[in-house]
């Protein structure tokens, strides 16, 4: 294993004993104009913990992740990283982002660069890693995720699943401690979803702390330590998957799950 995350593997599904809080979110509010997307989110993510965010489109999952990566300025509340506030004034956003990687629904690979250039750009330009060692690390990561022969390809020559795996590798190349995954399989053809989910499973097994917004309920049930159901910008229910998927307490969670089951997604 070459990721260099140095974390003891946690077994998904078992009640992990978190070594401490990685991300703390308190009273987070975020509006886009009149549209109140987040209305008071409180969430604590422990180191090595995997949390899945579920809920309908527009419930605020993506915005929550983008706020945690500081891609969206917040209106109220605070976010901490290992107890240190990152939403206040005088925070080096670029430094924060080295610790928190994010992968998007639409891959967002750089279309004018090869796979290898996509993966090595940030280590070289943000960390100052020399080209040779950045490329060596990139190749190791690409091979770990089954992309050995793709380093010279441009993104538009790859399948959606391959592009998304490259996007994950690109984020991992910065050696983040935490990964935010924003509906990373939603733009993929059904037969390509599994290869991306396998990659995420491997990350979870290696002990990566993850906050995952997803519509894949079966996957969330398998991989998450905790599942949070969001509706209208609030966390309605926050429970281990075994509990949330079988005996949801809140009426709104029950309604959502009934719809998911009716659609054959669980």
């Amino acid at each position, binding site marked *: 294993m070459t990721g260099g995350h140095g974390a003891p593997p946690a077994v998904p599904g078992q009640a992990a004993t978190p070594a401490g809080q990685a991300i703390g979110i308190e009273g987070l509010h975020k509006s886009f104009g009149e549209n109140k997307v987040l209305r008071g989110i409180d969430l604590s993510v422990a180191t090595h913990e995997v949390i899945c965010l579920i809920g309908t489109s527009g419930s605020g999952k993506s915005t929550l992740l*983008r706020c945690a*990566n500081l*891609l969206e300025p917040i209106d109220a509340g605070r976010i901490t990283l290992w107890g240190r506030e990152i939403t206040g004034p005088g925070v080096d*956003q*670029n*430094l924060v*982002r*080295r610790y928190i*990687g*994010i992968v*998007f629904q*639409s891959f*967002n*690979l*750089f*279309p*004018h660069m090869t796979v290898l250039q996509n993966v090595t*750009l*940030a280590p070289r*330009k*943000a*960390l100052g890693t020399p080209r040779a060692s950045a490329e060596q690390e990139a190749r190791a990561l690409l091979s770990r995720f089954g992309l050995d022969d793709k380093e010279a390809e441009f993104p*538009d*020559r790859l399948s959606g699943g391959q592009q998304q795996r490259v996007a994950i590798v*690109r*984020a991992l190349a*910065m050696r983040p401690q935490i990964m935010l995954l924003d509906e990373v399989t939603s733009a993929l053809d059904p037969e390509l979803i599994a290869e991306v989910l396998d990659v995420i499973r491997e990350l979870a097994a290696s002990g990566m702390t993850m906050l995952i917004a997803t519509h894949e309920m079966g996957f969330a049930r398998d991989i998450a330590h905790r599942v949070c159901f969001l509706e209208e910008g609030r966390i309605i229910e926050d429970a281990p998957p075994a509990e949330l998927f079988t005996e949801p307490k809140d009426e709104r969670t029950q309604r959502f799950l009934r719809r998911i089951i009716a659609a054959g997604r669980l």
Partner: protein
Amino acid sequence: MDQTQPGSGDRAGAYPRPGELSGGATIPDTFGTAGRGPRLLSGGGPRATAISSASTLVVLGVLTAIFLLAPGSKEVRHTFFNPHDMWQSLIGNPRQGYYSVGEALWLNIRMFIAAEVLILVLALVIALIRQSSSPVLFPLRVLSTVYVDFFRGVPLILVIFAIGFGVPALSLGFVSVQSAAVYGVAALVLSYSAYVSEVYRAGLNSVHRSQVAAARSLGLSQRTALRHVILPQALRTIIPPLLNDFISLQKDTALVGILGAVEANKAAEIFSDTVFNYSSYTVAAIFFLLLTIPLARFTDHLIERDRRRRLAGAMQ
């Protein structure tokens, strides 16, 4: 053919057979153009080549005939296409008081190159200022907006006059004692930068916001993201419109002649004033065509290449 597919079995009778459409309509034997005359406008094949060659010859023939048969044809040919005067204006004769149009063209080329480099830099700076969102840059943003509005609105020839005659009149020491060509280039740069900055801006806007998000989320600074992710993609889109502006710029160097700089058009003017024959202008026109046509074809080539790439991308 799979005979068991639905529709070909017992329900087939519910559908009209070939040739039996509802309302008594019939399916034609062919959808070709047979019997409806030649397809003049569709391309391809030796037939199309023959037709296009023939029509070109006819058009050229008619135009030549009009030119040759016009009542004043002989006069015009003598005044504009006199081989002796064309040759004289090409080589020049300082003792007779006129310069070589060919040599003067060298000044156009130098002005074009100098202006082009400066425009590329100044226009990019203006575009980046206008795209910025920092509150510190607010005054500069207003200034560059006013600049772009002003220089896009004022005719280039007025700008050349204003700079070429206004700046020397200011008696600003070093700044006021430059040659006409320098003031001409300054005017071209001021005017064209306003246009080209808008081309840059369109290019920057064409790069999707998610590319910025992806770059910044990796911990890259605004500057690094701009330099390595946004600009390379923007430049790719704007090269054809940019070259288009530079084709106009090549021609517009001729306007600097009004300040007295002896560029190709001015040299032609001096010749015609001396010899009372306009053939020198024809020589200048031919030179400008020789300069701009290769750039125009190169632009076409890039546009076509871009179109093919997009098609290839869409078929993935």
